[in-house]
């Protein structure tokens, strides 16, 4: 018998899963992950370094004397133009705007989706098409007419004003999501309720609303993230007293007296991004589902 015949006879599962190809896959993914994580690392590291360390070192160096002073400064005393109250007023403004705009936009969109599914009337589909078309229109095209309309009713630069704006621009996608969701429910539920004598609002409140919890969670995630991260509408419509955190952040960074304070800027950046990041990490799979729901067009 030759030596080759004495070699291992193949039996059972294939050996050596770790081929060059496999290593390459993980290598690519790890390098990509680094690309994605790097800015976050820079943000965190820079925000904890005193200015002299930044000047003397590079952005990837670990802080020698890590400090949260700049976080405090960004929160309470950084200058956003004339005022120097830090980000905290912006935070509370963002909270106010989000807390008001999210339920408003979701409630209206839910009613729209419900009506478009079960209570169609002449022209409702056409109106819906116009609405969806509106989702594609760049905001800047509609900015001025809305400015004009709001100022005519005295709501320009006020909290209700910006809530209305968020409701308007959130309506197309949210209505689409809710409509698709209600369309996926068995229509027998609706028919049975009608036979029982319930009307438009009755069926909505007692049957559809309780059933729409999963999609509502998705919508809430989408809206909270979208509204909190918004900049343009906050800049134009919120008014000086209600500027959201993102606008304040930009102001802090733009307001540099002399040298740029990277530590404070990065600290401010982290603070502004904290809320949506927390929502993201807590919601996990729901976030992905939200993207899929928003992305799946009819």
């Amino acid at each position, binding site marked *: 018998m030759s030596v080759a015949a004495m070699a291992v*006879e*193949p*039996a*059972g*599962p*294939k*050996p050596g899963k770790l081929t060059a190809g496999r290593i390459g896959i993980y290598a690519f993914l790890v390098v990509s992950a680094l690309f994605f994580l790097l800015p976050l690392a820079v943000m965190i590291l820079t925000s904890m370094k005193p200015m002299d360390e930044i000047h003397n070192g590079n952005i990837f160096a670990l802080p020698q004397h890590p400090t949260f002073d700049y976080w405090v400064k960004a929160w309470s005393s950084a200058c956003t133009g004339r005022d120097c109250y830090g980000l905290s007023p912006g935070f509370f403004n963002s909270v106010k705007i989000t807390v008001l705009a999210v339920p408003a936009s979701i409630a209206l969109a839910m009613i729209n989706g419900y009506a478009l599914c079960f209570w169609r009337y002449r022209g409702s589909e056409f109106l819906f098409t116009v609405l969806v078309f509106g989702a594609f229109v760049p905001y800047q095209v509609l900015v001025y007419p809305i400015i004009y309309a709001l100022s005519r009713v005295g709501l320009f630069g006020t909290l209700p004003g910006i809530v209305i704006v968020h409701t308007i621009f959130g309506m197309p996608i949210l209505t689409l999501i809710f409509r698709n969701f209600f369309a996926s429910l068995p229509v027998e539920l609706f028919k049975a309720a009608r036979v029982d004598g319930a009307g438009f609002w009755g069926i909505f409140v007692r049957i559809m609303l309780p059933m729409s919890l999963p999609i509502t969670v998705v919508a809430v995630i989408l809206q909270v993230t979208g509204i909190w991260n918004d900049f343009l509408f906050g800049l134009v419509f919120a008014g000086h007293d209600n500027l959201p955190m993102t606008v304040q952040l930009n102001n802090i960074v733009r307001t540099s007296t002399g040298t740029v304070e990277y530590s404070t800027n990065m600290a401010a950046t982290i603070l502004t991004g904290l809320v949506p990041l927390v929502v993201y990490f807590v919601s996990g799979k729901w976030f992905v589902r939200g993207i899929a729901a928003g992305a799946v067009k009819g």
Partner: protein
Amino acid sequence: MPMGVTNSSVIVREVSLNFGAVEVLKSLNLDVRKGEFIVLLGPSGCGKSTLLNCIAGLLDVSGGQIFIEGRNVTWEEPKDRGIAMVFQSYALYPQMTVEGNLSFGLKNARLPRDEIDRRVKRASEILQIEPLLKRKPAALSGGQRQRVAIGRALVRDVDVFLFDEPLSNLDAKLRNELRVEIKRLHQRLANTMIYVTHDQIEAMTLADRIAVMRGGIIQQLDAPHAIYARPVNRFVAGFIGAPGMNFIDGTIGEAGGKPVFRAGDARIDLSRYSFEGRPEAGRKAVFGVRPEHVATGEAASAMPFSAEASVEIVEPMGSDTLAWTSLGGQNLSMRADSEKAPRPGDRIRIGFDPGRASIFDAGTDMRL
């Protein structure tokens, strides 16, 4: 290790497959001869498709070996095993024409242009798909698509063909047509063919041998008529043959030196039955007789065993009618010609030959 000339085309040796803690295949052994058409038959979840995928190399075995044409292919990729496969959902490449589908694999293997053309031409002639060569799969009917799928396997010029429930997606009429085509194909090409199905009619008509599987184990590996006439256990007996075999619970006894079967007030003389071994008296058993073997009327009186029975229910099925009576207090169905079918309430004479029956142990379900 197989040495020298062998008649085996595919050998499966002690193959097991585990998905986590679940044992899907348990130490299977199978020896497929050259040019044989073997069918893996069984209900859903019995492991037949899994076994086929292991032979193909699409699944990695947890233990055991697989040999194809004398080579140990246990660790080989599917493309190196000398096999071709036809899938249940055809799996045609949607963006390519039929011609593209047939030649894609060959082009990838860098075969010379004229060789590719020759093989594509030959395959499309055999399967009569020449007029379809420029069409895309979306423009084909189900039967045409399946032919193209078989064509894609044909151009590979291999010794072993694997079929994974290829006719299950077709309607009944198409299924019958293509079944005949596949049989003709096998007669023409004489390749080894391993065919998976849950349809026993396909198995019976196509196979040289059938491997009836259940729970990851081959229950019986035999020629179709042997499986029909002498099923090795109760499961195989019930699985093959439609309408299904009648099963009557009772006990084996002795009467005058001869073995008998007792159920209720019925007594069946078993001297014509060929036992595997000698069961002792008092053994609980199940008596199995097929509806088509139960005769009625005058033919019944001529049978070794006959009895009076009253018809309870009648199920007309077109050319045949299934009539239900009881024997020994349990249901017994029989096939009758619809022209002369009995009616509910009729008292008729029924009879059968115990020699053609099957008796199983009540506990182990094995043939006695």
